[in-house]
C-alpha cells in the first residue's frame, strides 16, 4: 500500500470522505436508522441485563461485585464499540473478494484498508459506544478517582480500541484465503468482548495466561481495571502488568500490519 492519496490530508481525509457519504446515505431513511440504532443498543445492552439478572441470586461473581463487573463490561464495550464503529466493515472482506469489488478498490488511489474499513460506514454503531458509556459511567461511581487513575482509564480506552481494531483486521484477513469464513473472526472479536465482560477469575489460570501473553485480551480491561479498583492481581501476576497495556497494543499493531500485507499479497482476484 505504497500509493499516495492525490490530495492533501492523506488516508484520514479519505476515510472521512467515504464514511461521510455513507452517513448521508443511511440518514436518507431516518426512521429505519433510528430503529436500527435503538435496536443495536438493546442487543448489546442485553448482555448487561443478563449479568444484572444473575445478581438476583448472587452477591459476587468470581469475587467481583456488580459495579466492579460493570466497570469491566463498560471498558470492553467501549473498546470494541470504537473499533466496530471505525473499522467494523473490514468483516466484509470476504464479500468484496467474492463479488470482485476488491479489484475495483485496488485500482483507486486510496489505501485499500481505508476503503475496506470505511465502506458502508454505519453511524448507528454509535449506539454500542453510548450503551457501554452509560454502564461505565454508572460503575465509575465505585472507583476512588485519582489523577493517575484517570490517566490509566484514558490509556485503557485507547489501548482496548487498538487491540480490538487489530483483532478485527487480523482475523478478517483469513477471508483472503477462505472468503466465506467470516464467522471465524467473531470468535476472537465478539468472543473476546464476551470473555472480558466477566472477571477473569471465573476462568482457569492457563486461559488467563494465554489471554495475557498470547492473545492479549486481558489488557483490554482486566489489568487496567484492577489498577482503577486498587485490587491486587488475584492470580498473583506482577503489578506492572496493570500499566503495560500499550506494549501488547503496539506489538499487535505491528503483527496486524504484517498479516494485512501478507493477505493482500496473497489475494488473487476471482474475476474471469
Amino acid at each position, binding site marked *: 500500500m505504497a500509493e499516495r492519496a492525490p490530495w492533501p490530508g492523506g488516508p484520514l481525509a479519505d476515510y472521512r470522505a467515504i464514511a461521510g457519504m455513507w452517513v448521508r446515505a443511511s440518514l436518507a431513511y431516518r426512521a429505519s436508522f433510528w430503529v*436500527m440504532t435503538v*435496536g443495536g443498543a438493546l442487543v448489546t445492552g442485553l*448482555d448487561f441485563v443478563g449479568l444484572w439478572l444473575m445478581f438476583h441470586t448472587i452477591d459476587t461473581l468470581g469475587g467481583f461485585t456488580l459495579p466492579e463487573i460493570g466497570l469491566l463490561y463498560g471498558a470492553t464495550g467501549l473498546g470494541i464499540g470504537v473499533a466496530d464503529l471505525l473499522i467494523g466493515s473490514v468483516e466484509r472482506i470476504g464479500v468484496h473478494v467474492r463479488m470482485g469489488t476488491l479489484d475495483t478498490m485496488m485500482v483507486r488511489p486510496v489505501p485499500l484498508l481505508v476503503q475496506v474499513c470505511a465502506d458502508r460506514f454505519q453511524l448507528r454503531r454509535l449506539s454500542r459506544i453510548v450503551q457501554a458509556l452509560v454502564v461505565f459511567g454508572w460503575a465509575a461511581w465505585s472507583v476512588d478517582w485519582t489523577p493517575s487513575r484517570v490517566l490509566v482509564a484514558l490509556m485503557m480506552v485507547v489501548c482496548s480500541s487498538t487491540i480490538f481494531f487489530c483483532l478485527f483486521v487480523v482475523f478478517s484477513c483469513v477471508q483472503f484465503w477462505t472468503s466465506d469464513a467470516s464467522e*471465524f473472526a*467473531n*470468535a476472537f472479536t465478539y468472543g473476546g468482548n464476551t470473555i472480558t465482560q466477566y472477571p477473569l477469575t471465573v476462568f482457569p489460570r492457563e486461559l488467563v495466561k494465554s489471554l495475557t501473553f498470547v492473545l492479549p485480551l486481558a489488557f483490554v480491561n482486566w489489568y487496567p481495571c484492577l489498577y482503577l479498583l486498587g485490587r491486587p492481581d488475584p492470580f498473583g501476576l506482577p503489578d506492572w502488568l496493570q500499566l503495560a497495556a500499550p506494549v501488547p497494543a503496539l506489538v499487535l499493531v505491528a503483527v496486524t500490519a504484517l498479516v494485512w500485507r501478507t493477505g493482500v499479497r496473497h489475494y488473487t482476484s476471482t474475476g474471469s
Partner: protein
Amino acid sequence: MTGPGLHVAIATRAFRRYSTYRAATLAGIFTNSVFGVIYSYAYLALWDQRPHAGGYDAGDAVTYVWIGQALLMTVAVWGGGTTDDLAERIRNGDVAVDLYRPVGLLGWYLAGDLGRAAYHLLTRGLAPTVIGWLVFHDLFRWPGSPVAAAGAMASIALAVVVSFAMRFLFASTSFWLLDAQGARLLGGVLALFFSGMMLPLVIFPGALRTVALALPWASYLQTPADIWLGQRAGWGLVTGLGLQLLWALVLLGCCQLVLAAATRKVVVQGG
C-alpha cells in the same frame, strides 16, 4: 410432483444449499464452541455461589450452555433461515410469483426451513455438543433415558417450527413496512432474551420467570433443554411438548391469516 413428495424435495434442496458453505460451517462450529467455553465457566462461577439455582446443578448448567450453542443456528434464534429469503422477495416484489404458485407459500418456506434446520442440527448442533462433552466430560450430561432423548428430539423439531412461524410473522411485516429490518431486529432481541439463550429462564426472578416460560420463545431452547436434562419428565414432558405444539399451531394459524390479508394487498397493488 405434489403433496408430501414435493415438500420433501424442497427440504432436501434446502439441506444441500446450506451444505455448500463448508468453510462457513467450520468457522461457525469453532465460534459456537468458543462461546460455549466462555459461558460454561461463567455459569460455573454462578452455580458455585448458588449450587441449586433454578433447580439446576452445575452439570445441568454446563450442559444447558452447550445445548444453547447447538440450537442457536438450528432454531435460528437470531433470525435468518428461509424467512430472510421471504422478506427479500417481499421487498423486491418477487413474492407475487410465490403467491400465485399452485403450492401453499407457508408450506413451501416451512419445508425449506426444516431442510436448513436439519443441516444445521447435524453440523452446528452436533459438533459443539460433542466438543462440550469432550471439554467438560465430568459435568456434561447426555439424556438419561431413551424417552428423554426422543422427547428432546421431538422438542427440537417443534422448536424449529415455532421459531419459523415467529420469523415468518416478523418477515411478513415487510408487506406493510416494505423494510422489515427493524422488525426483524426486534424479533431477534425478543427471542434472544425470552428463549433462555441469554440466561436460563428457570433462574429468572419471580413473575418474569412465569411469564417467560409461558411465551412461545421458551420453546426455542428452555423446553428442549429441560427435556434433555430430565427436568421435564413424565407429565412435565407431555405438557412441555403440548405447549410447544399449541404455540406452533397458533402461530402457523396467524401466518395463514397474515398471508390472506397480504395476498389481497398484493392484488390491489398489482391491479
